[in-house]
């Protein structure tokens, strides 16, 4: 039995392009867990995989699109949300999820994020936040904590990071949550909830990049980072996202926003019916 044949016995392998495994991610990289929770959510929901699309950008986590066994698009860096918007609006029958990194979604892609959230396009966006650009070898990014070391902050970072959940809420997301990759069950549940809900949903996942960010900031091995998560995470559902901090001492996780607001698609549908009526009358 080849290792791939062995893998095909994994209950989630049917959602994955088995022939492309093992994946490229490093030992203890959180991206594998995110992918795992994601396909687990698909499995639990028994989604119609033929009508499901995964879009991602460029970055380590960006490779996820190439692992999920459904229609998928690995876009240019920063553009997954804009492209996903096109997919969703052109064919509303498709369920579209975006999996990408903190750099892809919030550095180069920040504008598309806030605008899709504002429009309340029906997308589920999952961000692997590893506090740096893993793929290009560990530069700082918009979530890198102050004073952290990266290859472009060799003396410590002087840029204040975004609070992604606050930004997402301010831009208009109807569902905003944060987990660490240690919270596998809650994360999977959160993804399920997001996939079932209509509108622009955002889940931030704090994810270790032991190989690069962890090493440079002396966080120990992957397992040490996971233990740190265990130690400093605090679940606070419904917390004001403005106050949901990520510091060396505390990571506030939970569901922060869960509201109802008409989606772009719904408002359009209403308008469409009105116009079609008018046209058929006149």
């Amino acid at each position, binding site marked *: 039995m080849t*290792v791939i044949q*062995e*893998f095909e*016995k*994994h*209950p*989630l*392998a049917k959602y*994955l392009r088995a022939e492309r*495994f*093992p*994946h490229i*991610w*490093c*030992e*203890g*990289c*959180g*991206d*594998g*867990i995110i992918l*795992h*929770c994601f396909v*687990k959510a698909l499995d639990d929901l028994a989604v119609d995989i033929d009508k499901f699309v995964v879009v991602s950008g460029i970055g380590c986590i960006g490779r996820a699109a190439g692992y999920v066994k459904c229609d998928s698009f690995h876009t240019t860096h920063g553009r997954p949300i804009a492209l996903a918007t096109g997919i969703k609006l052109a064919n509303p029958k498709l369920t579209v999820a975006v999996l990408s990194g903190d750099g892809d979604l919030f550095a180069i892609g920040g504008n598309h994020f806030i605008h899709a959230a504002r429009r309340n396009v029906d997308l589920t966006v999952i961000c692997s936040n590893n506090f740096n650009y893993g793929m290009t070898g560990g530069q700082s990014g918009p979530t890198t904590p102050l004073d952290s070391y990266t290859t472009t902050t060799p003396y410590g970072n002087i840029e204040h990071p975004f609070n992604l959940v606050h930004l997402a809420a301010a831009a208009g997301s109807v569902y905003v949550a944060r987990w660490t*990759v*240690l*919270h*596998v*069950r*809650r994360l*999977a549940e959160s993804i399920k909830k997001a996939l079932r809900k209509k509108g622009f949903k955002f889940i931030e996942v704090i994810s270790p990049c032991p190989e690069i960010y962890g090493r440079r900031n002396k966080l120990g*091995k*992957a*397992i040490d980072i*996971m*233990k740190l*998560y*265990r*130690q*400093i*995470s*605090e*679940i606070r559902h419904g917390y004001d996202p403005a106050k949901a901090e990520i510091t060396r001492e505390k990571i506030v996780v939970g569901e922060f926003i869960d509201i109802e607001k008409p989606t772009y698609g719904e408002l359009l549908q209403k308008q469409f019916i009105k116009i079609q009526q008018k046209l058929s009358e006149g």
Partner: protein
Amino acid sequence: MSASRLLTPVVKRKKLADVEWNVIEDFCKGCSFCIEFCPVDALEESDRLNAKGVHPPKLKSEDACIGCGLCETLCPDFAIYLEKKEGKGDKE
């Protein structure tokens, strides 16, 4: 804060499901998440060195695993999976 607060609490040592625990040894990269976070401490490093040069986990004893499934989901490399044991009733 303990793992049990973070993760779905499991009743200690109580068999949750009757499953077979499997590891795809050559997928394992040796992060040891499974070993560390198993709520019943059922796993340990095996002696075998796999293709990646690491020691994949193994069950400490055949009976150790209570089938909670946590290690499966936590494994970043899809190296672990549980299989329902066919035809067997609940062991309890």
